């Protein structure tokens, strides 16, 4: 039997995807990072510190919540892995604590990060403050407007936010700008990438840092006598919360479902290509120019997807679907009213798919675990604007 979500090959390939497509200037930094991560991940002292900070500072383990009302309404058994309850309000903290610790281990004093919704930026600024690092966050100008409160949060945390005015002024351009900046400061600065994307070792390393949530969830379901769910579902931007969740179930019988934004569905409407240091599935024009993604959620506004997801899709171990803006807004309201949890717009994509597919992809009586990747506080102003305009 094939095992899934183990190691990529020596050059960072997951099947045909992944690799390391970076300028020569960044090559030594990628190699250094890979070595530092391998070394740290096998070092009990590093692991202790990582787990200690995530527990004492990050609020882990997060619980699994049974959705009583929705389960009876939908005729399924619905569980949520509550990453919204982790510090800073999403799964992003798991990754940034790991990378910030690695930064110190490599003797670097500063991190830079890209952000879309601002969640990874806030998490990076938080980890930097906690561990005494400098932090600069690159954010598309359009996103700084959509998520103005998160910009202020990052600044409160002592980070500086650099609005990116090139291209579509969203997440993909923020990654470009962070990569350019990294070239000029690579000796002192670590690029704290926010998802399972980019050049090797990032897709693998970020998945490993996020695997804590999948491991916890699997154990929590066993502990409460539920066992292996029929299906685990997560939203997918770059794919880090999904990769973390899937890694806890990749070699079980559970169906793995990733839900992309309809306007950013790299698996659904993309084709193989090379961007941001990786070979993966990308939304691109018929002559290979990268297209802009469109989504109500800044965090899913990305025309690509992490290479391991491209591999899991190609090998049919995981399945990828999409959800549109309207059903996402409905799902956000439904979970809020029925269960008392306001999810992030990103997360609401996973919920929208579940609500839509009961009786379709999901059979009545199935046990479904959804990764509640983040809380919706950052999105309420935007949702108010949209719903207000409709009323």
């Amino acid at each position: 039997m094939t095992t899934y979500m183990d190691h990529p090959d020596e050059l960072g390939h997951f099947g045909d995807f992944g690799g390391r497509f970076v300028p020569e200037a960044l090559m030594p930094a990628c190699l250094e990072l890979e070595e530092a991560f391998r070394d740290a991940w096998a070092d009990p002292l590093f692991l202790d510190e990582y787990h200690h900070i995530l527990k004492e500072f990050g609020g882990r383990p997060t619980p699994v919540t049974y959705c009583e009302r929705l389960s009876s309404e939908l005729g399924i058994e619905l569980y949520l892995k509550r990453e919204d309850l982790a510090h800073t309000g999403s799964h992003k903290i798991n990754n940034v604590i790991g990378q910030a610790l690695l930064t110190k281990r490599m003797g670097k004093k500063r991190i830079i990060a890209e952000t879309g919704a601002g969640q990874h930026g806030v998490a990076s600024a938080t980890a930097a403050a906690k561990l005494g690092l400098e932090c600069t966050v690159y954010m598309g100008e359009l996103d700084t407007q959509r998520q103005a409160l998160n910009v202020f949060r990052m600044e409160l945390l002592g980070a500086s936010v650099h609005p990116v005015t090139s291209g579509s002024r969203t997440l993909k351009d923020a990654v470009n700008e962070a990569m350019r900046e990294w070239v000029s400061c690579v000796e002192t600065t670590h690029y704290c990438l926010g998802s399972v994307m980019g050049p090797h070792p990032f897709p693998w390393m970020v998945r490993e840092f996020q695997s804590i949530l999948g491991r916890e969830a699997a154990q929590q379901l066993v502990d409460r006598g539920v066992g292996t769910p029929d299906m685990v579902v997560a939203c997918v931007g770059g794919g880090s919360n999904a990769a973390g969740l899937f890694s806890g179930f990749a070699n079980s019988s559970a169906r793995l479902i990733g839900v992309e934004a309809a306007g950013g569905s790299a698996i659904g409407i993309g084709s193989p290509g090379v961007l941001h240091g990786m070979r993966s599935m990308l939304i691109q024009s018929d002559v290979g120019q990268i297209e802009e993604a469109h989504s109500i959620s800044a965090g899913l506004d990305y025309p690509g997807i992490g290479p391991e997801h491209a591999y899991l899709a190609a090998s049919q171990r995981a399945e990828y679907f999409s959800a549109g803006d309207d059903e996402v807004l409905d799902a956000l309201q439904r979970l809020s009213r029925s269960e008392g949890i306001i999810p992030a717009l990103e997360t609401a994509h996973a919920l929208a798919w579940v609500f839509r597919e009961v009786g379709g992809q999901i059979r009545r009586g199935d046990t479904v675990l959804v990764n509640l990747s983040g809380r919706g506080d950052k999105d309420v102003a935007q949702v108010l604007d949209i719903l207000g305009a409709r009323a």
Partner: protein
Amino acid sequence: MTSLDTTLAALRASGRKALVPYLVGGVSDDWLDHVRAAVHAGADVVEIGVPFSDPMMDGVVIQRAADVSLGRGTTPQSVLDDVATLDVEIPLVVMTYFNVFHHMGVTRAAGALHSAGVSGVILPDLPIEEQGEWRASCTDVDVATINMVAPSTPPARIEQIAKIAQGFLYASARMAVTGAASDEGHALDVVTRSRAVSDMPIYVGIGITTPEQAAAAARIADGAIVGSALVQRVLEGQGASGVEAFVGELRRAIDAG
């Protein structure tokens, strides 16, 4: 050995330092006249950028030129079709990002480059580990794959790169993306370390902005590559005569030694 290797080795043997201006393909109706003007003013190789939506190694000037060009409907094939109509005596090399050719399919892309009369290709986001298939397809049709070395590249890796490099070694003078700079950065160090492991021509680029800097780069290496400073003039609307004047200045500065 590709034809580009032979041509550039002969150029060096003649004692002439190479001047390599960079222009963005499709940036204006008369962009081919800019190439001709550069050749007329004494370029030894012209580097032609095929615009890509996400130019990770380019600073604001070349980004802007790429946006202008894409806004005019430029495609990789339209640049190559234009290039095919040029009848210049010097080698032309293309610089772009790997996705453009990956999307075409590497065999087809290599064929298209060859048909357009392109002698070499620079792909800054395609490191040696990922070059195998690309390099083989290009070598088959006599198109050179040109590699970069950076100030951060350790000696053992420079050696690995130099072993398979074709045409010339592109020595990046600084840890930066393309754009203006006020000095030659780490050029001397990179060139010295490259010379120690390779006898192929070494050209310095990234940040070379003035004729004085170009002359300094050519003194320590076998040639100088000038991009943003020239593209800036094109964006200002200086046209073919502006290109000819600036490339002429660069030429004279380099030849004065």
